[in-house]
């Protein structure tokens, strides 16, 4: 166990460095990229821009710039080019919004896809199964910006059942919080429900024909118990793998489309505007942040695997 944690931590550090270095390098390749001008502002004259470049060491080779920036990142002093805001503070303020969006959405999509996948597998070949699977394909295929816009148009603008974008803190009013987030939750969950329920259905159908399921029936267990304790229990692993990765990416800011459409002041929205402005520090911090979640949830998934399947031993 200790060995597992140590090895995972080493690979996490290596991954964080590699990711941030790659992201930083990409910007060097963008022709119109000029951080000095971004910092100096749109209307600044060339002298000011040169001044800024000298002051922030932006004339030095890019690996030195990278080292300087990383130093600022890890001392928590890094500032974005566009609004002069402390990036780490921004992440700290915006994380609760993203968590509010992603965690309930994740619960929603997990529960829904287990239910739909199970129903589909239990009614395989019948109308229910076909209906669910067609719906799942649609869910996977509809782009999230389109779905989010459609939901907004229909339920917030036409029917006015839900507020037209915006965010309320949970601490201020839990009901308003949920009220504002229901549409965003649905738009994030839909894609995953479509994908997960199809994966689960095919796992379940493979598992139904396993010998130990036949044994469970031969023991005289009730159908429900055979299904839940034996079929579903043994089919859930691939879903957990998918879930760990998807959940980590969304927490790291991958919900940027949803946050932008619904005007939720989360990490994704910050990232989206940073990408638009070629503002490196938030993107750099964002990628480190995401990489951290991916490694952390990867390790958690492996731990969960070892708990769920006694045949699996932990390895770094």
């Amino acid at each position, binding site marked *: 166990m200790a060995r597992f944690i140590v090895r995972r931590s080493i690979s996490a550090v290596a991954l964080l460095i590699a990711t941030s270095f790659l992201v930083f390098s990409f910007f060097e390749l963008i022709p119109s990229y000029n951080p000095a001008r971004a910092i100096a502002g749109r209307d600044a004259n060339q002298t000011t821009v040169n001044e800024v470049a000298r002051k922030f060491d932006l004339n030095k080779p890019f690996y030195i710039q990278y080292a300087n920036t990383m130093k600022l990142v890890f001392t928590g002093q890094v500032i974005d080019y566009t609004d002069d805001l402390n990036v780490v503070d921004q992440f700290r303020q915006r994380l609760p919004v993203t968590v509010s969006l992603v965690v309930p959405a994740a619960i929603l999509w997990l529960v829904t896809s287990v239910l739909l996948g199970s129903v589909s597998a239990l009614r395989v070949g019948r109308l229910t199964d076909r209906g669910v699977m067609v719906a799942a394909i649609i869910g996977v295929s509809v782009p999230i910006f389109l779905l989010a816009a459609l939901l907004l148009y229909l339920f917030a603008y036409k029917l006015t059942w839900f507020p037209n974008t915006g965010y309320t803190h949970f601490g201020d009013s839990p009901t308003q919080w949920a009220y504002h987030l229901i549409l965003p939750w649905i738009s994030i969950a839909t894609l995953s429900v479509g994908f997960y329920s199809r994966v689960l259905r095919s796992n379940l159908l493979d598992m139904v024909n396993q010998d*130990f399921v036949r*044994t469970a*029936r*031969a*023991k*005289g267990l009730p159908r429900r118990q055979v299904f839940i*304790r034996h079929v579903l229990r043994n089919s859930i692993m691939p879903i957990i793998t998918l879930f760990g990765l998807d959940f980590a990416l969304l927490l790291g800011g991958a919900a940027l489309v949803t946050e932008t459409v619904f005007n939720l002041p989360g990490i994704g929205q910050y990232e989206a505007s940073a990408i638009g402005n070629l503002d490196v520090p938030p993107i750099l911090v964002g990628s480190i942040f995401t990489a951290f979640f991916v490694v952390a949830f990867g390790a958690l998934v492996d731990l969960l695997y070892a708990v*769920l*399947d*006694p045949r699996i031993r932990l390895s770094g």
Partner: protein
Amino acid sequence: MAERLLEVEDLEVSFVTEDGVVRAVDGVSFSLDRGEVVAIVGESGSGKSVTVMTLMGLTRSPNARFGGSARLGDRDLVGASERELESIRGQEIAMIFQDPISSLSPVHRIGDQIVEQIRAHEKISKAAAFDRAVDLMERVGIPRARDRARAYPHEFSGGMRQRAMIAMALSLSPGVLIADEPTTALDVTIQAQILNEIKQLSQEGDSGVIFVTHDLGVVADIADRVLVMYAGRVVEQGTLDEIFYDPQHPYTWGLLGSVTRMDREPPRRLPAIPGQPPSLANTPEGCHFRPRCPHAFDRCTEVPPLESRVPESPEHTDRCWLDVAEKRARREVDGRIGLNAAVPS
């Protein structure tokens, strides 16, 4: 006369597939008494496994069709509701499967898997059920059973897993125990131990055992009576001695002839039955064995009924039109029983 446990009559199982209707079991009848071991032998695809799984309702599926009856006490297993079957399975009929690694759930502890079965049928506490599971595991020869009950199947050897399977099958003292090739996946020494366990069970007199196998050596060890199945039908049925020393059906001769014996000079080529078993979606008219049988004649296009044809043993039945004296002459090949390709003139 011993108490009758199970009476299977004219059992039919067919599956609707893309290639047509597959008649996996075509009119199988047999009975099982308390304390008796009935072996069902035949090659792969002869319908022996489908027959016994149907008794437990494990072949039920939307494309399966059933006929005939299988009476257990006053209930018919073929027509029983799923709910009735749930209470019968594991409690009145239990089954030991061929491959003990794939037949046990990989993610549950051995003891818990036995506990699960006990608690599906009896309202007792987990602790009491666990104690009983440990007793059962001890009874089938698993050492340090209390510790081992907390282990997972992958931590058991093949033989120990099969013992655990047997412990599970015995957990509610079922009247009928079905063993579907329980020793096929095991090596020979473990096989002998497992066979002994099963034999002991039947000799203790509480259960009747249906033993499905393709291994005639195992049959000779354990069976009281033998059913020989071919392409979905019972072609011959009799006591162990009748089948081994006075076999009536050419298919049985072929099976016996293809057994290599340690006490004889080994043949230069292992004898085999020529040809392939028929597709069950498209069986030949009349006797199913006709296309592979060197002794087939005109009448074989008519289905021979399973009936007593040997005057001195009325319980011995078979499906072959040949005259008894003729059969006894034709089955001798080089001083032993076999299926002779060349018909003596």
